């Protein structure tokens, strides 16, 4: 009797928690693998990049927080700086069709050219699958994955959660910090922060 009660409790616990435990990337754990089509038509798989650092950048071109980092050239500067050091940089767009930030491949290519953006690729995550896999909440949310495929940073781009361009100067950039510390064999001091920005415009996220 007791045993069966305990068993049903265990079953209940497993049933209750299972959906929450599925995927959702966590700092210190393996980065969930994904395959996606980029705006340039190529297909990218995360696990093909083992041996390299990978940065994931959640993007929405209509979000003022994203605008802050693109109008100032901050994001492009980071993309150029780190892809120049063999880091793979994926810009990920998880906006569903009809929602803010959704773009077709050609619209994204135009944007990348106009903004002089330089990610390795811009991945079109129209279904929101990658976004949900990483539990991406905001644009610009940033994730850093080490060459072993472990998430070493997840959170905000920097410590100034505002839309003011003037706040970029003097901000501590968490992505740069994580990459610099990891590349020099140090422990990442700030592995997780609250990502700031606009909510990711997943399918079904409009009222």
């Amino acid at each position, binding site marked *: 009797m007791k045993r069966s009660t305990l068993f049903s409790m265990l079953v209940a616990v497993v049933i209750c928690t299972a959906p929450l435990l599925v995927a959702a990337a966590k700092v210190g754990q393996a980065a969930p693998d994904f395959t996606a089509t980029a705006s340039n038509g190529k297909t990218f798989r995360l696990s093909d990049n083992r041996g390299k650092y990978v940065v994931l950048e959640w993007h929405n071109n209509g979000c003022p*927080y994203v605008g802050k980092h693109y109008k100032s050239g901050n994001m492009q500067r980071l993309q150029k700086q780190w892809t120049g050091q063999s880091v793979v940089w994926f810009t990920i767009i998880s906006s569903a069709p009809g929602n803010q930030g959704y773009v077709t491949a050609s619209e994204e290519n135009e944007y990348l050219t106009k903004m002089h953006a330089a990610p390795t690729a811009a991945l079109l995550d129209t279904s929101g699958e990658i976004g949900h896999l990483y539990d991406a909440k905001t644009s610009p949310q940033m994730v850093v994955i080490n060459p072993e495929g472990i998430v070493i940073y997840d959170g905000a781009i920097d410590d100034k959660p505002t839309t003011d361009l003037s706040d970029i100067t003097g901000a501590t950039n968490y992505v740069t910090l994580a990459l610099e510390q990891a590349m020099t064999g140090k422990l990442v001091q700030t592995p997780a922060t609250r990502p700031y920005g606009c909510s990711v415009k997943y399918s079904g996220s409009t009222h």
Partner: protein
Amino acid sequence: MSGHKSSRGFSAALAFLAALLPSAAGARASGSPIPHGTLELIAENQWVTPGHEFFLGLHFQLEKGWHIYWVNPGDSGEPPRVKWQLPPDLSPGVIEWPAPQRLGTSSVVDFGYQDAVTLIVPVHAETSLAAEPSAHLGAEIKVLVCREMCIPGKTQLSLTLPIKSQPPAPDVRTRELFAAARKDLPRPAPQVWKFSVDDARDSFVFAANVAVQIKQAIFFPLVVAQIDNAAPQVLHPLPSGFRLTLRKSDRLLKPIDRLQGVLVLSSNGAYLIDVPVSKRGAQTNNSSSGIPEIQSSKEVSQQ
């Protein structure tokens, strides 16, 4: 002077009066525009009395469907920020935040306000203020207004209040707004209420003994990235209260000493919560060990 002319003057006067009449707040200056709404700086009293504390309010009116954010905005967004421009003899306190609402979707949950909200700010007037005839109060506000999209706004507000040595007198034009705002302010919990928070691996188990059974409660964490905002808050009614399971944020990598926030009981108002976190559950890895140890509500204090 012809009769015609004077009747025109009379109707103009009537029209002017009619424009003033429709609302009790008609005599107040209309708010400054912000994205999809207006914002007005209001004062609770008719004048500033040196040596006394008085209250200012930031009154937001938002178009339907648009919202602004609580001090902890939740998963996205940011709270309004104020840069005061006050005479040196006036010192502003911190914003008194009314209890927020849960906003957003199943995967991204924010904390904020829709329709209208007044953020109250206490201001202390030094006795040295007496030499001036009036005080010019200014504030630069930055506010993010969101619906499906977010628009940042910035506005400059100002208000001039006479300085009088008479005791403070309330301003009838703003009385209702301040009264409404105070009704929504979280208050300290009654001394007899007991709270505890148990660290149970993936969750915090918040237990409340409030003398009656509670079937609905929402907890709003004051500090970001402690609890998973989007996770359902699972409530177990207890004979004299409830137990609320709050899933931890994936970004909470270190144990916390205290859980602070606002507890909203649907029937019963909003309360300030500041409870030490018991590590007992974490040590035994047993999150279902019944009702956790109860702490004194003396631990409940102002934020």
